[in-house]
């Protein structure tokens, strides 16, 4: 018995040490590459009840502001976005999220249709490391791995990040067990302004047809939504590039019609939304800044409200306190970023 207890203590110590070391060595994404921490942030939500769920790449987490949707329409929403999120990752993130809640609307940004193969290990990591362990994550990892990646390094991320031992910073120690959020319900705020100077022409592609696997996962997302009674909505955010080809758009229009799904290409209505590409983007048109995101969200919120008659929760005490705190934090951060921008501008002059 004594021996068993001793072995038990030793095992616990070993596991504790390994866990601690793993937590220390994993990147924290708190001051740089904030995108890396976004997928995990969702699990910290106190109230996982949202009317609208956005899942896709940077064109959702940079361009839609859940706070604006709340303030203007009382719509509660969350964005589970990650950089260069692949469509099968979006599918598995949807499956993962539906374990916690069942939103009324699911919004998918169709730029995710462009990649039919895994693209990069580092983007995979940012999309997958933050997911909680489940069979869903396992499937997501299996679908996403690059040829030289190993499944076991997703199971035990220490095997992937061990080489960070010589680049640890104070941030790694600070956030070893403590978590905090850097986004506003998945929205990554940017307040800089870098106007569009020219609109690039898309380079000619050999084949404009989206990959079969992309359609397969889009079908799966639509089917899953229908099964759960969720309304899928397809959007194309008004980012100037990556270039959105007419041929691609035609395929999405066709798909939406066939499946009776709402599809909105916001590039076509950018003027109507009021987006000014000289002031509303922080990176010459790839993504909107907070001003552009607020305009787009206000416009999209109205469509959602009018089309689907979503409940206005602004007077609902269950949501009021939580969302007021989020809103306060949002404006504090916005003011901070604007102040930084202005200080930089002054320093530049």
């Amino acid at each position, binding site marked *: 018995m004594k021996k068993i207890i*001793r072995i038990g203590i*030793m095992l616990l*110590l*070993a596991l504790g*040490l*390994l866990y601690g*070391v793993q937590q220390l*060595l994993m990147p924290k994404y708190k001051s740089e590459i904030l995108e890396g921490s976004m997928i995990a942030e969702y699990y910290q939500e106190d109230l996982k009840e949202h009317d609208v769920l956005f899942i896709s790449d940077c064109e959702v987490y940079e361009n839609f502001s859940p706070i604006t949707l709340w303030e203007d329409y009382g719509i509660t929403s969350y964005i589970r976005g990650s950089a260069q999120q692949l469509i099968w990752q979006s599918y598995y993130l949807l499956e993962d999220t539906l374990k916690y809640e069942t939103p009324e609307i699911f919004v998918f940004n169709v730029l995710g249709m462009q990649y039919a193969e895994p693209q990069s*290990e580092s983007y995979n990591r940012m999309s997958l490391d933050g997911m909680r362990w489940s069979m869903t994550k396992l499937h997501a990892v299996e679908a996403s791995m690059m040829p*030289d*990646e*190993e499944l*076991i*390094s997703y199971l035990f991320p*220490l*095997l*992937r990040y*061990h*080489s960070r*031992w*010589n680049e640890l910073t104070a941030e790694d120690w600070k956030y070893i067990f403590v978590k905090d959020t850097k986004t506003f319900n998945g929205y990554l705020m940017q307040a800089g302004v870098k106007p569009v100077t020219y609109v690039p022409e898309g380079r000619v592609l050999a084949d404009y047809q989206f990959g079969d696997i992309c359609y397969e996962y889009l079908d799966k997302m639509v089917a899953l939504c229908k099964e759960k009674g969720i309304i899928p909505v397809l959007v194309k955010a008004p980012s100037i590039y990556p270039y959105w080809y007419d041929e691609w758009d035609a395929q999405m229009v066709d798909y939406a019609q066939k499946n009776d799904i709402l599809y909105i290409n916001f590039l076509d209505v950018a003027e109507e939304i009021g987006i000014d590409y000289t002031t509303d983007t922080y990176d010459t048109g790839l993504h909107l800044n907070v001003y552009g995101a607020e305009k787009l969200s206000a416009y999209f919120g109205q469509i959602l409200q009018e089309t689907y008659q979503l409940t206005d929760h602004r007077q609902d005490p269950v949501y009021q306190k939580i969302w007021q705190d989020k809103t306060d934090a949002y404006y504090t951060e916005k003011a901070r970023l604007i102040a930084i921008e202005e200080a930089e501008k002054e320093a530049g002059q």
Partner: protein
Amino acid sequence: MLFTSYLFIGFVLLTLLLYYSFPKRFQWMILLFASMVFYAYSGIGNLIYILTTVLTTYLAATQIGRLQNRTEVYISEHRQELSREERKTYKAAMKKKQRLLMVSCLVFNLGILAVIKYSNFTIDNINKIADMFHKGTISFLDIALPMGISFYTFQTMSYLIDVYRAKHPPEKNIFRLALFTSFFPQIIQGPISRYEDLSQTLYGSHDRNGREIMFGLQRVLWGFFKKLVIADRMVIAVNTIINNTDDYSGIYVFLLMILYSIELYADFTGGIDITIGIAQMFGIKMKENFERPYFSKSITEFWRRWHITMGTWFKDYIFYPISVSQPMLKLSKNARKWFGDALGKRMPVYLATIVTWFATGIWHGASWNFIVWGLLNCLVIMISQEFTPLYERFHRHFPYGNTTWYRAFQILRTFLLMSAIRVLDCYRNVGLTFKMAGTIFTDWNLKGLLQGGWNTLGLTIADIILLCAAVLLVFMVSMLQRSGSVRVKIEQKGPYAVFAVFLLLFVGILIFGAYGTGYDSNQFIYNQF
């Protein structure tokens, strides 16, 4: 399947699980199955080569065994009728048949090795000569080297020769011989086991012994530490120097000598530790292949302590047979007449030494680099042999031979000498090697190294500190080993000490190992041989 891959670790764990779950009589069969799977993973077609070697060796050894039995039976049954001379004649005739069988089998299997490993080297040399005479060239053969061919060919050769020499009877079961030939932990880089040693535990029934498994595991971890923390980190700097000859000459070549020696030691001994440790977990005892070689005081001693199983193989199956062969004895007799007793006696030994080192060199690889490397080793050994009287006279006049400082000098001298010869492993040809080695004397450039040059070798300051600490740890463990097994010493400190060492080593490898993304998967250096 790389030893350092997750797949291999999983493979070993699964094999262990099966090994101790099934009834003991199936244990060797499980090992054979695992070895075949392991081998087939390198290419299913490669199985043909190893199975051919197993089959031919089995047939030849069995037949030799039958002839030996028949001789014994015949002699004992006809002892009364036959004269001593007749018995001798009969024995010689039977021995001749056995020799014919043995030689045929050796030639066949060595032929496979030669064709696969040395064809392109031969063609390359023929083409170079043809080019000098503006003749046409021969196309290279497209043959992949089957995994471990040099090791298993040598292992089966020693088995067959030992059967011929009646050191042990032939193995009756071909599957058991197949296991001896293909035992998966040793197939890649040795040790080159002898049948009489390995067979004692390879086919036995083994109880699950926690202590043996833990000892084996500790040794495996120590091997991984040397391979992943030291060798695979050191290789970054080594390759930077080797691949950029225009930028790294002079002192960098000297640095390369040192770094490559450490890398090779960590890589090769690490691999052998993993091999012997895995075998120990299965309850199988393998011969040691190293005995702290960098503590050697002479090159002869070094070769007694480095890659021991290869050294003894060449000694037993090449050096001695040549030394005592009829032509050599004849040569010795004649040489004594012409050059006097002392030199005449040494000449056959030297000739056998040259042949042995030539064979050692070419066994390591089909290139002139390895041949020159082998012959340089031979040259140093012969020179030191010739100078022995001089050394003895020197020590009589200056009796410092037993002081610690002199011993340290001898160790350092041997290390530097071996390191210098090993540079031939690094550069792509002999000419370039000597050219780069020459820059040590013509283009030293210490200033360049100190003024930031060290920082361009691909290692950060943290890496360098880590390497120094890890090498120091290996050195300290080697010092401790001189007075007995380090694992036993740790065990004597109690279970918490065992646990702490185990855990620290494990976590140390996990954190500081040069594996995974950002590091190339480095095959063990000796795998190529």
